[in-house]
C-alpha cells in the first residue's frame, strides 16, 4: 500500500504484524491488542495501530518506546483520529511518526497534517495528483494549527500554511 509523505509516494519500511505469527525482527506495526508483546521485543522499531475508539492516554506508558502510531479512519466521516493525532502531539509530546490509514479523502490531507500527522496510507490504485494538489493549492488557514507553529499573517488568528 503506497505511503504518502509531503504529497509524494515514499517507500514504506514498516511492515504490519501478521495475525497468529511471531513478530520477528525489523520495524513492525502491531495491532493495539499486541502492544505488550511488541514492547517485549528487543530488536527493531515498534509501531502500533490505535483504534479510534481508544483514548491516546492508553499509550502513555508505551510511548517512549514507540517510533510510530497509526491512527485510523474506518470511514472518512469519522473524524476522531484528528483529535487523537493532535492529542498525541499536544498532550503526550509524541515526537515519533504519526501515520493515518483507512478511508481518507485527499480533501482531508491538509487537516491531517495540521493535526500532526506525517504520512498517509493510500490504496494501490489511487490517483496521486489530487493529493499533491491538496498540498500546493492552499496557502492560508484562518486559525493556528493546534500543534504546528505556522507563520502568523500579521493580525488575528490567520496563518500562512507551510508548503513542503
Amino acid at each position, binding site marked *: 500500500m503506497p505511503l504518502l509523505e509531503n504529497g509524494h509516494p515514499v517507500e514504506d519500511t514498516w511492515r504490519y504484524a501478521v495475525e497468529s505469527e511471531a513478530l520477528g525482527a525489523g520495524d513492525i506495526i502491531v495491532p493495539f491488542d499486541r502492544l505488550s508483546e511488541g514492547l517485549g521485543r528487543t530488536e527493531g522499531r515498534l509501531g502500533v495501530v490505535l483504534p479510534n475508539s481508544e483514548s491516546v492516554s492508553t499509550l502513555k506508558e508505551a510511548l517512549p518506546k514507540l517510533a510510530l502510531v497509526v491512527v485510523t479512519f474506518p470511514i*472518512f*466521516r469519522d473524524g476522531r483520529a484528528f483529535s487523537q493525532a493532535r492529542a498525541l502531539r499536544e498532550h503526550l509530546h509524541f515526537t515519533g511518526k504519526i501515520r493515518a490509514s483507512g478511508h481518507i479523502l485527499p480533501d482531508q490531507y491538509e487537516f491531517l497534517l495540521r*493535526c500532526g500527522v506525517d504520512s498517509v496510507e493510500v490504496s494501490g490504485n489511487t490517483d496521486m495528483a489530487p493529493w499533491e494538489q491538496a498540498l500546493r*493549492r492552499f*496557502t*492560508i488557514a484562518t*486559525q493556528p494549527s493546534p500543534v504546528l507553529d505556522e507563520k502568523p499573517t500579521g*493580525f*488575528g*488568528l490567520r496563518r500562512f500554511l507551510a508548503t513542503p
Partner: protein
Amino acid sequence: MSTETMTRAEAAPAVLPVGRYGYDQIDRTFLRERIEQFRDQVNRRIAGDLTEEEFKPLRLMNGLYLQLHAYMLRVAVPYGTLGSKQVRALARIAREFDKGYGHFTTRQNIQFNWIKLEDTVAALEVLAEADMHAIQTSGNCIRNITSDEFAGAAKDELLDPRVHAEILRQWSTLHPEFTFLPRKFKFAISGSPHDRVVARFHDIGLIARPGPHGRPVFEVFVGGGLGRTPIVGVSLRDDLPEEDLLAYMEAILRVYNAHGRRDNIYKARIKILVQALGTDEFRRQVEEEFVAMDRARYRIEPGLVEAIKARFGAPAFAPAGEAVAVLAEDRRRDIAFDAWVRTNTHEHKAPGYISVVISLKPAGGIPGDATAEQLDLLADLADEFSFGELRVTHLQNVVLGHVRQDQLHTVWQRLSQAGLGTANVNFITDIVACPGLDYCALANARSIPIAQKLSSRFANLELQREIGDLRINISGCINACGHHHAAHLGILGVDKRGQEAFQITLGGSGEEDASIGQILGPAMAEDETVDAVSRLIDLYLVRRENGERFLDTYRRVGTAAFKDVVYAPA
C-alpha cells in the same frame, strides 16, 4: 447588475463595512483558493470522474445540497450581517442562476433552491467578489455562527457580540480537527440579557457581558437542540473570561469529537452526549481537557480582539437633533405608519436612531422569500438609511439596524410601495416555516401552503393586533428546521398513512424562558389544522387576563382546555 448599481459599487470609497469584518487580501486569497478547489471538483463530477456518492461530501463542504428537484445552494451570512454590495450580489444570483428569488433561513443564511450544477462555480465567484461564500453551511462541522439581529444597535445590549462571533468564525472555518464531527454543530452568540438568538437551543449558546476588568465574560450553554429530541441547553459556565474563549470551546469540541455517538445519526448531536453523561460529568471532562491544554497557545489577547475589531466599520451616528420630535409628529399624523412603528421597530442605543424590522411575511406570502427586485431595494435602503448594512433575522425577516428617526416615515413609504411594509412583526402572521415538501427531500408535508393559508386567515391587521404577540413556527418534518418546538404555537408536518398531516404543539419558547412545546393531540389534515388554530385563538381571546400573551394564557390555563377546543368542539 444594472449600470447604475455598478457605478455605485465601484464609486464606493474603500471604507470598512459597517457591522461586519472587512476582508483584506489574505482573506480574499483564502476564498479564491477554496473556490479553485471546488471548481475542480465540479468539473470532475460533470466529466463523470466523480460519482454523486463521492461528490456528495465535497459539495456539502461548499453548501451545495441535492434537493427534490434541483441543487440548493446555501450561502453563509456570518452573524446575519450583510452589506449592500453583498445583498446586490445575492440579487444577481437570484436573477441569473435561480428563478428570481432567494429564501432567508432560520439560521440567518440565504438559500437558492434552483441552482444548476454547471452554474455553481459562477455563483460562488459572484459571491467571492462580494467577500461571501458557502463554506460550512452544511456537513458535520461548525456551521454559521448566528447572532442577535439587533447587535450593535439594541438599547438593552451590553456589548456587540459580532467581534467575538467573527473570532469564532475564523477559528471554526475549516478547522483541521473539527471538520468531521459526529454531527453538525451550531453556535449562537448574543450580547444582550434578552435572548434573541435562541441560545438555549444551540449546541453552544454564548451570552456575553462586560466583565470586571472591562473585558467580556461569557455564559456558556451547551447541548441544546431541536430535531426529534428537543432539549434545552444547560449552563456549563457563567464566567468564562474572553482570553479563554477559544480554549474552552476547543475543550468542549474535543470531548464531543471523542465521545459523541457515531453509530446512529439521530443520537449524534452533542445534546445526547451531555444528557448521557449528565451535566456534571460532561463539565468535568471538559474541565479536565481545559486544564491539560497549553492555555497560552489558545489565549485571546486583548490586542487580537482589538485588531479584529479594527476591521469592523463603525456607524458614525449624527446628533439626535430634532429626529425624535419629527418621528413623534409623523406618527401622530399617520395612523398606519404609527401601527407599523409600534410592531416593526426596536429601541436603539443611540439617541435619535431606531432599528427597523422589515417583514418578509406579507399576507398569504411565503415566509422568508425575497425577490431579486426586493433584494435590490433592500440594498438601496441600507445604503441610504442604514450605513449600507442589513441583517437577516432567525425569524426570516430583515433588519435595518440604524435608521434616523426623522427618516423613518420615508423608509416606511418606500417599503410599502414595494409590498414590504406589512406591520405584523411578532404577530400571528409573522410565521416561520422551513422549505418543506415543496423543496426538501426529507419532508413529510408541505410547510409553505399551510403557512400561506394561516397568513391569509389572519390577514386582518386589526385582528392581529387584538391577538398580540404570537409565534407560529412550521416544520415539514421532525428535523425541526422551522424551530416548531420553540414556538408558542408550533406546527409539525407528519405522514399519516401516506397523507400529509399536521401536529400542533403549544407552549414553546426560544427566549430566556426557553421551553419545549407540547404536542396537543393527533395530527390533522391541512384545512382542519388551520381551523384548529382559529379555535385555539378564540379560546385564548376569551380566557386571557390583563394583557397576557397567548403563551402566558396557555401556561396559566393548562393544556386541557386547549385540547378540548380542538378535539372535542362543543
